[in-house]
């Protein structure tokens, strides 16, 4: 029929027999995703002259990851909660609680793998507990996790006796502050005295880029073979080049300081796994469906209670992981640890384009949102501005980011 002519006519490349999406459509469809990256770059660039470009320095970039990975990990769980129209206010307290328990477990002689496993198991159990009330007893997530916030803070005070628990040695904190090169005792491959390059992150970066390019090319060819629309060759290559360059530059930065931080591996794996779950698995589809319209999801045969339950289990597990990392970073388990973690994670989600209406949000988006938060915190610390100012600036950024999001969404006719 007449309408079947693809309005997305062959871009300016004119590849024969390949249906390409023209640049305008592509740009319009993805403007919100791109703009988050642009905002991140913009914020870094605004700070740069004020801190004499130290924020792009190898040491500083590495430190950002050491210091703020917990936000990224929590945001990956939080985005799923918000997609299904929930929220988790308890993550900060849970981090403190799990941190305290794992510090005790570690100090009692269990190795780091055991401690990590324990953290994840405790986290999942806490998530399951809260998820049970939310999914099956139909208590709003806000209430259940508000109760959880108080409950686990209280339990933390009880188990720690309101005293910090210091870790018996440095083994615990490797995960949070160590690098692959140090653990594997890799020496620098370039060493001129003032300039060193450690190998692990470089190898990793090159390997990732290679994998990424190969998988993208295969996916594109498969699309073409099936006659689906693809972006034109030029745009495709441009995208690959940009992303590869970013990865390699970051790898080089890590290499120049202490090598590849282990937390970066942890965050990277977490992001990859949950990105995959949300985009490519049946479970992920169900999560979006429940968030998009739970009544319709139900009639499509989706067990929305189970999905809600699973999401909160994920959140609990990620809170457990974040607990180990934040405790390791401090090198002690503090009873008042994890203060406002939930707010950071929620802010990261909203900066990262998650919709308060449910059903919309991506892992990549909230990671960028988390990095935006980290970049602001970091920039202001470099400028020696205290916590007070950081709060004010973060508040403005959250407000503006969400305003921008709502505005572009309305313009694109998305409500």
């Amino acid at each position, binding site marked *: *029929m*007449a*309408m*079947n002519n*693809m*309005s*997305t006519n062959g871009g300016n490349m004119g590849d024969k027999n390949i249906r390409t999406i023209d640049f305008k*459509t592509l740009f*319009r*469809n993805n403007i919100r995703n791109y703009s988050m990256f642009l905002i991140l770059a913009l914020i870094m660039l605004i700070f740069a002259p004020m801190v004499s470009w130290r924020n792009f320095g190898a040491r500083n970039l590495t430190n950002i990851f050491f210091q703020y990975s917990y936000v990224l990990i929590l945001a990956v769980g939080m985005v799923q909660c918000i997609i299904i129209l929930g929220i988790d206010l308890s993550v900060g307290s849970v981090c403190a609680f799990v941190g305290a328990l794992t510090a005790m477990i570690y100090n009692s002689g269990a190795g780091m793998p055991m401690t990590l496993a324990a953290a994840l198991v405790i986290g999942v159990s806490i998530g399951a507990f809260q998820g049970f009330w939310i999914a099956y007893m139909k208590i709003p997530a806000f209430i259940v996790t508000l109760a959880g916030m108080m409950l686990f803070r209280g339990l933390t005070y009880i188990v720690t006796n309101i005293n910090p628990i210091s870790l018996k040695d440095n083994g615990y904190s490797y995960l949070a502050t160590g690098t692959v090169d140090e653990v594997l005792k890799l020496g620098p491959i370039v060493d001129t005295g003032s300039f060193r390059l450690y190998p692990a992150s470089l190898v990793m970066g090159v390997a990732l880029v290679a994998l990424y390019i190969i998988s993208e090319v295969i996916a594109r060819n*498969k*699309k073409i073979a*099936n006659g*689906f*629309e693809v972006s034109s060759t030029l745009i495709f290559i441009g995208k690959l080049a940009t992303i590869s360059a970013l990865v390699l530059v970051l790898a080089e930065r890590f290499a120049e300081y202490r090598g590849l931080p282990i937390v970066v591996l942890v965050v990277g794996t977490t992001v990859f796994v949950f990105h995959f779950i949300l985009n*490519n*698995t*049946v*479970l*992920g*589809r*169900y999560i*979006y*469906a429940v968030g*998009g*319209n739970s*009544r*319709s*999801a*139900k*009639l*499509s*045969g*989706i*067990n929305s209670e189970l999905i809600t339950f699973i999401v909160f289990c994920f959140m609990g597990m990620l809170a457990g992981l974040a607990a180990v990392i934040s405790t390791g970073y401090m090198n002690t388990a503090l009873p008042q640890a994890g203060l406002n973690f939930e707010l950071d994670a929620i802010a990261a989600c909203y900066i990262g384009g998650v*919709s308060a*209406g449910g*059903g*919309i949000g991506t892992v990549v988006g909230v990671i960028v949102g988390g990095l935006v938060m980290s970049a602001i915190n970091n920039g202001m610390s470099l400028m020696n501005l205290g916590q007070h100012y950081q709060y004010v600036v973060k508040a403005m950024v959250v407000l503006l980011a969400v305003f921008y999001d709502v505005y572009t969404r309305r313009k*694109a*006719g*998305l*409500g």
Partner: protein
Amino acid sequence: MDEYILEIKNLTKEFPGVRALDNVDLRVKRGEIHSICGENGAGKSTLMSVISGVYPKGSYEGQVFFKGHETAYHSVKDSEKEGLAIIHQELALSPYLSIYENIFLGHMQTKFGIINWDRYIKESNKYLKIVGLNEPPETIVSKLGVGKQQLVEIARALSKKADILILDEPTSSLNDDESEKLLDLILEFKKQGITSVMISHKLNEVLKVADTVTVLRDGKSVASYDVKADKLTESRIIKDMVGRDLTHRFPDRKSQPGDTVMEVKNWTVYHPDFHKIKVVDDVSFFLRKGEILAFCGPMGAGRTELMMSIFGRSYGSRSEGEVLINGKKPDLGSCRAAMNAGLGYISEDRKSLGLILIQDIKTNISNASLGKISRFGIVEGHQEMLVAEKYRKDLNIRSPSVHQMTRNLSGGNQQKVVVSRSLMADPDIFIVDEPTRGIDVGAKSEIYSILNDMAAQGKSIIMVSSELPEALGMADRIYVMNEGKIKGVLTHEEATQEKIMHLALVN
């Protein structure tokens, strides 16, 4: 005063990837009933949204003249001020507010910011009387059936002192009786000098009330007729709508129903809020292999409630009775279980129970059958695309691609997406609740032939329908319901409109 109250010249409106309106001209005479016809996605609703300021000046090209001057609305409020009232395709009442609040919401006068509700309750009675709605104004809107809600919408429009009333498919969710009443109301308005613009897919209604008919096709205005002077016929309109003749609207079919596949015995369902009220009362029926059953009856007869309570207990606080499928009593405790037992259900309420509006066509189609296109819990995106593309072609869903968000589709095309989803789930017993609501004549016959094909393949179909011709044309047997009870059953041969009405209302 000039002859035309509303005049549109060279109107073009584009959405990303879609030219919804393409150089449209339209002239509506003062005091007439003007009907707009066209296939799903032809641009009818978009045209009305432009006229009423939903899409503000500047977002379209061309001119709109209302009462002789060119309009430049920024929002619906502006058009309301000038006496233009629109009733959208999807009802836009506030479900938890009362009738009178809904009528006056947004345009009531206040004293120091305080509303004198008593005055409005009294005043709303006046409008309710005009539209013939016999309900206390304090009634919460969500407790009313769709037909009555429609009347509240009209009362709301009247309370704004409209000179022109735009109705987008006002009868699509009404049964014949209610439609009749509504059409009479529009004719009554005409006598009082109110102009009406009505969009409808029910061509018999169009010919009955309209003075002028304008046909849109692919966003263009292709023809405009004076119904009386041009002796306009349905087939003429259809030809203009689809660009070709459409010979048989109910495809022929030879049915040879086989053994009984489903039997419902003494099924009783209780109201979700008022646990003592029986919404479905001691209903028994059976369904044979390869058979098409229709359930007819007035709004509120309990048909939807019956079907939803069978499909995974999706309705009601409690139900009693037995459902046998192939002689066995399967678990029907959740929708998933019902689907595993071979049932499929298409809801009549596509917006709140059918679609996920913020997701695209592809995802909406595949959501109920991801098991078929996944391995080890991983969705195979390419296969999903292929399947979605197939349905988009088969049902002629109008959109630039399967990546279009369903909220941006026209009403009829949304319905086609809902139908596609159930087709993909491929149930043995297919329960369809108003499957052709808001669908144009061409697509209707496509859906009918799909249902016929399914029956021919040995699947069984239960069709809840408020359109008697559809039930008469399609069904092997027709169950007539009213007030939660089955009032009788007619075979294809013996059924007539009169008999159905008689059964529903008399005993």
